């Protein structure tokens, strides 16, 4: 009892000091909690399916933010990484009989290669030119897919893959835990020293060069990391749907990722994740009015972006929290003084 009691108390103190002090942290905590314990309440197959797909796309949207939000390398062809991850996992599974726990990481690695392949020609490009060039890559790959139907299955895709796991419940836990883990890792990266350099590259590349930083290396690192996470999500998708088809490479897929990220708030990681968890189920919900589905969807996004140009999650966060003008620590909006330096919050 003694030892356990001490540890429990320690954990509780930590929890109170680190999580309960800020509404945004409580929300994140609840988000973890609800996702991890939802199956205790319901194991509705349809609901789990929606949440599995949502988790997969949340990884994808966060990986876009890592590259385009943080590092400023505007990628309008993010579907490339998703497709490369999906096709690699599918082909390895089908022909080499590699189980999902091997084929999905290998799909991620293949997407790292794809990241380097598009990263290198994109090193010299910026802004609109970069966006247009990146847009082309998944289209090129789609051309290749259609050109060698013997291997890729052409329009039909590669089907008949092994299941992610033996049941929907396991599928759920695999994807949700991976999503929570990978997004935490991405957030940690952006919060690290590497993240500062990524951010600085977005602000002013020349000034990063004159700070003695090898910009080429860091840009390629951003492309590779982003490719890896997107590739994992592609592999997960292929195994969950048991098919990797050309739809994973479509232009609309690339744009959807951008829409998610911008809607949720770029340069945050949590923004795109939250956005997918709002928008993907919402789109499913709008199926009740099939003829208006896309229209409703577009209206929601336009309204949000019109009134919350920085994305919905940062907007909400700014409403419930404010930054201390002196020490820059965030506080609950209702507080009168900063919780750390007790400076008055205007």
């Amino acid at each position, binding site marked *: 009892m003694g030892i356990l009691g001490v540890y429990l108390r320690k954990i509780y103190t930590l929890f109170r000091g680190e999580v309960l002090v800020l509404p945004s942290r409580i929300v994140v905590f609840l988000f973890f909690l609800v996702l991890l314990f939802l199956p205790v309440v319901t194991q509705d197959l349809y609901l789990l399916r929606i949440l599995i797909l949502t988790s997969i796309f949340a990884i994808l949207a966060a990986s876009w933010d890592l590259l385009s939000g943080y590092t400023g390398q505007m990628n309008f062809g993010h579907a490339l990484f998703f497709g490369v991850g999906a096709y690699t996992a599918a082909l390895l599974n089908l022909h080499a009989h590699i189980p999902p726990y091997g084929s999905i990481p290998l799909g991620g690695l293949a997407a790292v290669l794809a990241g380097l392949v598009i990263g290198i020609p994109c090193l010299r490009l910026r802004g609109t030119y970069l966006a247009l060039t990146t847009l082309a890559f998944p289209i090129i790959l789609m051309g290749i897919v259609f050109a060698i139907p013997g291997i890729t299955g052409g329009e039909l895709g590669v089907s008949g893959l092994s299941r992610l796991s033996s049941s929907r419940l396991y599928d759920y836990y695999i994807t949700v835990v991976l999503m929570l883990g990978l997004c935490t890792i991405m957030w940690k990266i952006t919060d690290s*020293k590497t993240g*500062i*350099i990524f*951010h*600085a590259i977005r*602000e*002013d590349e*020349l*000034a*990063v*060069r*004159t*700070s*003695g*930083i*090898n*910009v*080429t290396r860091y840009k390629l690192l951003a492309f590779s990391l982003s490719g890896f996470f997107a590739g994992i999500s592609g592999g997960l998708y292929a195994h969950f749907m048991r098919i990797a088809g050309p739809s994973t490479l479509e232009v609309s897929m690339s744009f959807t990722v951008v829409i998610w990220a911008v809607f949720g708030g770029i340069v945050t990681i949590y923004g795109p994740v939250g956005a997918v968890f709002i928008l993907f189920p919402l789109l499913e919900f709008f199926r009740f009015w099939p003829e208006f589905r896309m229209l409703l969807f577009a209206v929601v996004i336009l309204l949000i972006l019109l009134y919350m140009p920085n994305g919905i999650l940062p907007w909400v966060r700014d409403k419930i929290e404010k930054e201390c003008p002196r*020490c*820059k620590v965030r506080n609950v909006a209702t507080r009168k003084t900063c919780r750390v330096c007790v400076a008055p919050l205007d």
Partner: protein
Amino acid sequence: MGQAFLEIDGLFKDFGGLRAVDNVSFSMNRDQILGLIGPNGAGKTTLVRLITGILRPDSGSIRFKGKNVIGLKTWDIINLGIACTFQNMRPFRRLPIIANVMVSCLCPRAMKRGEWVKRVEAKALDALEFAGISDMSLEKASTLSQGDLKRLEVARAIATEPELLILDEPFGGLSPAETDLMAKSIKRLHKGGRFGRLHSEGPAMIIIEHKLQQLMKIVDRIIVLNYGIIIADGTPEEVVNDKEVVESYLGEGGI
């Protein structure tokens, strides 16, 4: 005496039809503070950009500590020990000031040198302290005034622990009192030593400046550029009395 510290020979740079740097040759020693002056558009900034590899010269050679730097990437040149500031400040606006300096502290050169300083933040803070803006370290760079941005530029440059520091108009936008303070800091830095956890080699310096009175107090040699050509090179006294310099830049009133 061995090879010169910085040796520039027959440097040319054209922009379309405009010759911005025209057959510039000079060399400087490890212990010098060199003032680089000249009218607007004389090619001073362009010369700096050639040295730091941001631009590539059409012809000529630049040797730093005996090593040819032409064709090297800018970050490699910085890591050899040259640092520069931008005349028209280029901070990372949406990053806190401390993070602006941390980027410089994270370059391989600075990381190698500060082995006993594991904390990059601490070192960045000392660079800010030196420049006199450490109290604002958590503010976003976009909130800084012109003068403070100048100081941020200086803090970023010295954080790489250079042996040659090139300052492009460090006094621009500063009030007379601030200018004096900055001049003092520059002199202190040149003497070398420790500033908190930041180590100064006592870098050689090239200072570009239009505020000649203050500049004269710091430098021990001045080079005057006009239309990309070096028209004078000598001690401050020699240069202010040079006929051509007076005609093309100083005017009859002198400084």
